[in-house]
């Protein structure tokens, strides 16, 4: 038997399952994979923490000024108390730890209805465990860790991971497929299950599932040791994280964005899915967007794409930009023709005319002193507008990502003497690019490398460079 332990819950379920997968590579062995999760991930501790915090606020009386939403009803208003929760998110760990010393019967009984409410809320939006882990968490991880609250509906840990990776669908389709395939061989009264096509492919039901389904067996596998270690309350020397505090405007925007995200995702992926909003836009990215918007870093679609690299940016980015503009109307563009006059004494007399004239005209007049240059002519293709030495014999626009890759690719291949040029943008009908191969000769006798083009396929010369 082999034991794999994950110390502290990782960022997402992928990492966890990858680590767990290192156990029991030999299928003959039975292995245990243990996740040691911090208390802040557990819903009960969060409830306890809330109770304690309420008490604390009653004692202090300072922080209780703002009415708080009940924990069960938190699904309706997600942003209900994020401002204050962020500031105290770090102390959630402390509270959870301290509570271990206290005999907690009362708290549990008091909060049992809260827990039931919370189960509902997990089922609905699968979220809201610990505030402190809000930004680093994944909803699936929360479900995975809090699976014991959902075990009434046979939702153990394994169910959640399987659902996330669509393994349940695979199993169903597999069985259906086999039924169809073996329908002739198995008459309806034949009770035995049809054999799988091979032993590797057929999903098997685990003999020992998890600590919810088989608590005794798991307990026997993990050798518990009696530890008489006294829990020392953690010192206050843990540095607090700098948290960005949202304005009220931004928290409204965040509400709307969450609602939009859920609605769009539900229409996209169907209402049956567990994590529709997560599939459309991950919570972490959403929080990032809100902070970016609040600090005025996202204004256009390009910004959104650049900052977040969202997959659905092309399809749904416009809607988000509309939302942003609704909540944060862009500042009116300052009129170019009204310029604040400089104080007269700093301004020498020859330029005093320029005060009345618009600034762009004055700047053009200053550059107008230079002689206009004739457009350069390429020596390779004899077209005006670019030089042969500059890049290649035609200019490559540098803005688009694809063309940056192109250029990189071109320079890489140039070392070998053969250049492959992709021009995906010019033939949009061909979705994945066409390669054109040109042979270049590089004469190295002069100091600057002279690149000459001799097209290999003469029919496919580059289309005229955009001048």
């Amino acid at each position: 038997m082999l034991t794999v332990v994950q110390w502290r819950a990782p960022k997402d379920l992928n990492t966890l399952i990858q680590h767990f997968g290192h156990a029991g590579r030999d299928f003959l062995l039975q292995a245990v994979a243990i996740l040691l999760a911090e208390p802040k991930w557990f819903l009960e501790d969060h409830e306890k923490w809330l109770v304690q915090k309420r008490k604390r606020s009653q004692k202090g009386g300072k922080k209780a000024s703002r009415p708080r939403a009940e924990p069960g009803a938190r699904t309706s208003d997600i942003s209900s108390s994020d401002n204050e929760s962020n500031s105290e998110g770090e102390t959630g760990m402390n509270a959870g730890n301290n509570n271990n010393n206290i005999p907690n019967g009362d708290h549990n009984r008091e909060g049992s209805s809260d827990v039931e409410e919370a189960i509902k809320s997990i089922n609905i939006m699968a979220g809201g465990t610990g505030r402190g882990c809000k930004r680093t968490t994944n909803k699936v991880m929360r479900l995975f860790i809090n699976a014991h609250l959902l075990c009434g509906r046979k939702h153990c840990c394994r169910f959640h991971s399987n659902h996330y990776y669509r393994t349940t669908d695979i199993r169903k389709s597999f069985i259906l497929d086999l039924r169809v395939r073996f329908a002739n061989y198995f008459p309806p009264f034949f009770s035995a299950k049809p054999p799988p096509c091979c032993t590797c492919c057929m999903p098997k039901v685990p003999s020992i599932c998890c600590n919810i389904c088989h608590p005794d067996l798991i307990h026997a596998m993990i050798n518990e040791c009696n530890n008489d270690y006294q829990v020392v309350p953690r010192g206050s020397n843990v540095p607090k994280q700098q948290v960005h505090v949202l304005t009220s405007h931004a928290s409204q925007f965040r509400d709307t964005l969450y609602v939009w995200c859920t609605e769009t995702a539900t229409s996209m992926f169907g209402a049956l899915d567990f994590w529709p909003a997560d599939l459309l836009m991950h919570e972490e990215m959403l929080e990032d967007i809100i902070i970016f918007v609040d600090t005025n870093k996202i204004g256009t679609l390009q910004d959104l794409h650049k900052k977040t690299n969202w997959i659905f940016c092309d399809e749904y980015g416009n809607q988000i930009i509309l939302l942003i503009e609704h909540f944060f109307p862009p500042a009116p563009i300052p009129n170019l023709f009204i310029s604040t006059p400089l104080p007269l004494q700093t301004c020498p007399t020859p330029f005093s005319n320029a005060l009345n004239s618009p600034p762009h005209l004055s700047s053009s007049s200053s550059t107008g002193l230079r002689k206009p240059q004739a457009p350069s002519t390429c020596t390779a293709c004899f077209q005006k507008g670019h030089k042969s030495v500059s890049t290649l014999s035609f200019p490559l626009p540098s803005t688009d990502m694809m063309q940056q890759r192109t250029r990189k690719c071109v320079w890489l291949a140039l070392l070998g003497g053969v250049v492959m040029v992709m021009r995906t943008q010019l033939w949009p009908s061909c979705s994945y690019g066409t390669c054109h191969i040109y042979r270049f000769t590089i004469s190295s006798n002069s100091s600057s490398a002279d690149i000459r083009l001799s097209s290999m396929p003469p029919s496919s010369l580059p289309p005229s460079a955009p001048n």
Partner: protein
Amino acid sequence: MSKVFNIVFDEGHCITQWGSSFCLEYKLVGVLRFIAPGIPFYITLATIPRTMLLDIKQMLHIPLGSLLFQRSNDRHNIAFCVKRMQYPISLFEDLAFLVPSSWTKHNHAPHKFIVFSDSKRKAELASQFLQNQMPENLKHKVKWFHAGMLEFFRKEELQSYKEGDLWGLGMTDVGGMVGYTCRLCGCNASDSCITVCRVSMFQMC
């Protein structure tokens, strides 16, 4: 170029997971599609949720007609267990159950274990804690293992883990990626090792 007949990515989830954080070159791996046109690509991953599937399809320019083989990644011989930490994180006291106090030299070899953590320092601290739990003559049985080590040392260590000289390892994610691990973990009892259980696979032409 004509000699290349296949391009295969193993552990394809690293392309998206690491491509956005610390290994930015992975993002550009889609360029290979243009450098080597017409050569089929295979990508294998063990964990692929739907978002990652979309991401990888976009990153590697996978056309619509490509094939997706998906098999279950549910490992029936691994039992899951979620435990709540009882002690403060900085003390690693929760790991103490891995080293029962009854361990002596004359015992039969105990169950092996691997502890994964998310940084090198934590892996070292966890292993040091476990070493301190063990009796003096057995301290060398637990070691740590991460990317900051020399390659020959890692090979040696894994070899000894395989053979049963080492009982426990504190690892990081990168340590698990070295590639020997697929032959490492199952081999404590029998020598038959099934290398990898692959789940999803693309084929594209």
